[in-house]
């Protein structure tokens, strides 16, 4: 029992300690420079790689035993994401290159590639939660906002799924759950940590240029993403595995990709 057998020191590290500020600043500069100098599609690709790379790299730095050693992780992540994005846009079927991102991530972090019953349970629970939330989204959106469910072309759906797996969901869950939520939760109760993490993740999606900025869409997005965020925080706190939140996010966004106006 640690309370008896180990000396405990009060948490002295700051909440944002080990944030790779230099790398994040470099990414922001690259994004800004690309937006000013490159054509829009190229600038968007660089922006996507920089944003998701920044989240992933920061999550790596925050969760590492020695954060200082991961100070350039955002650049590495952005590079991997940039290459994957390049492949996805230039090579037919290149979207599978997004699979390289989770592969790179688990290669970088040995403790994230552990498998076991707890991870399986977390993934199963997360998948069930994401599925229910996604189905609810489909029903509700199709009944109210004039959306309807369209299966679409499998290639398109696969492209979205690959993008969500390699960039969108993975980066969001790694940063907002494994990084931010876990850090806050070490200091404060679950409710506070979940509120901070969920608020941050909802804000990130509401600012996402890919989301249509109409009031009803923003309200719906805030509602569902808040539920997804709180649920994923609970999954992470319950099972200690990121597999659950990632599975939930993937299935929820898969449902979202089925909606068309």
């Amino acid at each position: 029992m640690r309370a008896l057998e180990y000396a405990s020191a009060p948490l002295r590290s700051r909440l944002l300690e080990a944030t790779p500020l230099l790398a994040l600043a470099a990414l922001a500069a690259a994004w800004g420079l690309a937006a000013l100098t490159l054509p829009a599609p190229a600038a968007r690709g660089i922006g996507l790689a920089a944003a998701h790379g920044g989240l992933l790299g920061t999550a790596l730095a925050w969760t590492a035993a020695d954060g200082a050693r991961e100070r350039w992780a955002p650049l590495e992540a952005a590079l991997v994401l940039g290459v994957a994005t390049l492949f996805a846009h230039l090579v037919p079927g290149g979207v599978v290159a997004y699979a390289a991102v989770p592969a790179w991530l688990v290669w970088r972090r040995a403790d994230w590639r552990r498998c076991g019953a707890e991870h399986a349970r977390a993934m199963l629970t997360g998948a069930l939660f994401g599925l229910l939330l996604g189905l609810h989204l489909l029903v509700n959106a199709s009944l109210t906002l004039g959306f309807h469910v369209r299966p679409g072309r499998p290639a398109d759906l696969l492209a979205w799924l690959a993008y969500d797996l390699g960039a969108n969901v993975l980066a969001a869950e790694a940063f907002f759950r494994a990084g931010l939520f876990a850090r806050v939760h070490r200091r404060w109760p679950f409710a506070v940590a979940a509120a901070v993490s969920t608020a941050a993740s909802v804000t990130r999606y509401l600012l996402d240029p890919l989301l249509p900025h109409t009031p009803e869409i923003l309200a719906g997005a805030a509602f569902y993403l808040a539920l997804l965020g709180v649920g994923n925080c609970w999954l992470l706190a319950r099972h200690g595995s990121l597999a659950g939140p990632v599975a939930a996010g993937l299935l929820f966004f898969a449902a979202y990709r089925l909606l068309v106006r």
Partner: protein
Amino acid sequence: MAVVIALTLAGITALIAVSEAGVASLWRHAYHVPVVLAALRWGGGGTLAALAAILFYTPFVLPALERAGPSRAVLEALVTLALLLGVGVSSGALAAGGRRQRARYEALVAIQRAVDGDAPLDIVLVRLRACLEARLGGLIGIAVRDGDRLALAGAAALAPGSPVAQVLGSGAPLYVSDLGGGARPRRCFVAPLAGRGGITGALALERRGDIGADERRALLALATHLGLALENARLAARQRRFAEELAEKVTAATRHIVEMDRMKSDFVAIASHELRTPLTALQGFSELLATRRFAPSDLARVGTIMHAETERLGRIVADFLDLARLERGLAPPLRRTRVDAGVVVSEAVEVLRRARTTHALELFCDAPLPPVDADPDALDRVVKNLVGNAVKYSPAGSRVRVAARPHAASPAVEITVEDEGPGIAEADLVRVFEPYYRAPGGARVAAGAGLGLAVVKSLVDAHGGTIRAENVAPHGTRMTLILPALS
């Protein structure tokens, strides 16, 4: 249970869907049933069930709101949504509070049961830990001061600087939001166990989930109860031990009194016999002197016998008087002076050698011996008593060796008297100096009141010396007397 609740929610939703009233269907109120059931079953689960019910019901509410605006039916539906959330949260909180309260009462009862009985503290702590872990949901550690040691449950040793060690040092409760050592935070709350004499220990709860302020307050109260219960148990155990020790002492004292009584009875019988023997001799010879005429040579012989018997009578009476003083806790009266122990021993042996012809008395006396501060008469009495005993309890014709030499280890004189008798049983060696005590079989071998060695020991003690009895190989007894020398 979770499946039943999910199916109930789905069933109610289906009933609303097929109802003509749609969003205004009265079936919507049925959502409260699974919500309350979940709250009663899991506490916080009521909130989750309420959220699920809201998710099920909103696909009816939002389209109606979009179609008809805030109509009466829609407003009622919105009120239903709010009510569901309110009922789920409040009933869940109430159920959780009630469950926590019940757990506390059960924990108090369990604590009383665990500390009840004669079990040692370590066993009690293990029991307490098991019952508290079952009720508080987490790992429990208990540290209790037990005299100079620290009794622990939950770990083999207490690490310096650990939360429990900090609380034992400061006496103030401690909450640690993360103990480290894992991907998920491990919370820990340590409450001091207070007794009448201050902090007697600490109770630690450690778990991965939150330990809220309300639970921490409850743990503090529980720790207070636990501290008092442990102290009461310790006092009760001490009282039991005291009563047992007292009973043992009373039994031993009673046994001793019975033994003393028996020995005194034996002594009265022996003393009567011892006194009667010289008295009979004196009575007989005095009658002869009164009724007959003796030749001068016979008169001298009779006078010598009467003198010897009178001396014997005097010695017995002197022993009785010394014993009486000894039993009153008084030291025998001594007239101490600078004495050469070798001279006293030689003279005593010479006197006895002349009187006792049945044994070969051998004297080994180193010269010069350091002088001792002693009463020469008392020392003479001691030596004669020891040599007399050696003669009495060893076969005729055997040797009795008396030696006086400087003591090897300290400035003192060592006097030994060694015989070739049967020796003394090991169990009796320590008892031969007790008053009235006679080794089994001793009375058959020689007469005596059992006072001689007791008087010898009191005299030696009064001189600041020591005396011990031991058996020597192949057979025989050695009495060793050590008297401190004058510095």
